């Protein structure tokens, strides 16, 4: 398997406070990598450096490299980066003033794709791939916000997937959802990896174990351990990792 996305000594600051310290990870293509660690340890900041959203915060600073297929994303147009590296957020955030179908194609419309037939086709295809189509097909013009929490999140995933990104970042996508929706989305993630590289933050070690191929542990802004998931959980190399997995903190 080739590496899709590589960070080299990635460091990040909020003003004077350093939140990431020289994190270097290589993410495998078409695999699911989980990022775990106690809250506030820089996981969110890390993935926001991967789609260049961290720098939008006032006083934010980034150093180091992030290479997508060998090209440093900090030398590219940020909008281009975000087209290729999509994101799903912790709290589902469909656009309330847009219908379900408009939500799905919100990103594509920006790129000028206009023909209705093409858009309709994309809507159906993407909604099917997230398993939402049959549930909403009778009225796609309903507001995106009128769905249940789990459905909204699947809509957001569809919206991100419609851009046909190469990598998709997920920031605790199921932490605001009920168990039934959570397992549906975990199933979706497992299905997605055959087409796309997935990086998922989760504070639920069980979820990491269920869903990912590799797992990385971030603690206080530093990468402590990164391994195949099975080995990560069965024989962690660092004592901090072990304490975290066994629930002694975080």
């Amino acid at each position: 398997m080739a590496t899709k996305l590589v960070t080299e000594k990635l460091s990040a600051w909020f003003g004077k406070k350093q939140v990431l310290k020289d994190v270097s990870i290589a993410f495998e293509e078409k695999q699911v990598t989980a990022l775990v660690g106690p809250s506030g340890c820089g996981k969110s900041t890390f993935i926001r450096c991967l789609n260049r959203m961290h720098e939008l915060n006032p006083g934010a600073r980034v150093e180091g490299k992030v290479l997508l297929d060998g090209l440093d994303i900090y030398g590219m147009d940020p909008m281009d980066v975000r087209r290729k590296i999509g994101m799903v957020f912790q709290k589902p955030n469909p656009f309330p003033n847009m219908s379900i179908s408009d939500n799905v194609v919100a990103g594509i419309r920006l790129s000028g794709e206009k023909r209705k037939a093409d858009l309709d086709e994309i809507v159906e295809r993407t909604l099917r791939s997230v398993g939402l189509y049959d549930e909403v097909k009778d009225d796609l013009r309903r507001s995106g916000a009128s769905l249940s929490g789990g459905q909204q999140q699947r809509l957001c995933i569809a919206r991100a997937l419609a851009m046909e990104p190469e990598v998709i970042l997920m920031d605790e996508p199921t932490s605001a959802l009920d168990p039934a929706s959570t397992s549906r989305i975990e199933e979706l993630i497992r299905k997605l990896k055959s087409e796309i590289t997935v990086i998922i933050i989760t504070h639920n070690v069980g979820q990491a174990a269920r869903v990912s191929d590799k797992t990385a542990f971030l603690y206080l802004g530093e990468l402590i351990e990164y391994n195949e998931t099975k080995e990560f959980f069965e024989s962690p190399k660092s004592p901090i990792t072990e304490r975290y997995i066994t629930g002694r903190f975080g």
Partner: protein
Amino acid sequence: MRLLSRRAKEKLIIAVLIALSGAAVIPLFWIIGSIVWNGVSVMSIEFLTSLPAPFGSSGGGIGNAIIGTLIINLFASGLGIPLGILTGIYLAEYAYDSKMGSAVRTIVESLSGVPSIVIGLFAFTLIVLTFRHYTGVAATLALGIMMIPLVAKATEESMRVVSNDLREAGMALGIPKYNITTRIVLSMAKGGVISGSLLAFARISGETAPLLFTALFSFYWPTGIDQPIATLQVLIYNYAISGFADWVAKAWGASLLLVLLVMTINVAVRTFGRKKCGGA
């Protein structure tokens, strides 16, 4: 649309936005510039302290108008500020959920939307027509009424901000509600109330319409609040539309004074008022 053209479109839009912003900024500079340019040349001690010269001759000044404005403002404040504060206290402390409270609030807000000339008309019909006499009293009534919603809103807002813990502490100690309100909450809301009153004072300094048919104008020193009184605002209006070069020049001078008065109060309130409220 390729990425490049979306970027280009954005650049074009930014240019349009800057142009539109400029359309708002340029008139401001133009106005201030005109006032300073035209007004400074008229400034002198004589200008500030003497009565207007007989019509047709130059010289003289606007001393009576300056004093007149201050007198009218003071009397108006005597009406508007107390009523405004009391109404504001009522709205903040007693009118939270009641129907009566929201009715009062609606009326106070509607009052702030009444055009100044209509309030002037009211004072005119109530006092001037009834007593067949142009008088400064009517003007102070009109301006005082205009101050009420401004002061009430400032009072209500700054009292709302005072934390509920203080109120509950007062009540737990058995202090009657009226005392809680006045002593504790009002003293903490002091800054906001003062700011609001000063801003209202500045606001009515610029109001001209209600004065046109109440206090009218006069070429003499003020003799009594029951007589017509000269004010800066009405002077500016009368002199500016007169077309006589000397009078127009004096109107610019009066404008400079008026703008200085209003701006100084506003700037002072915004810089010092913020610190005070922040501390509270």
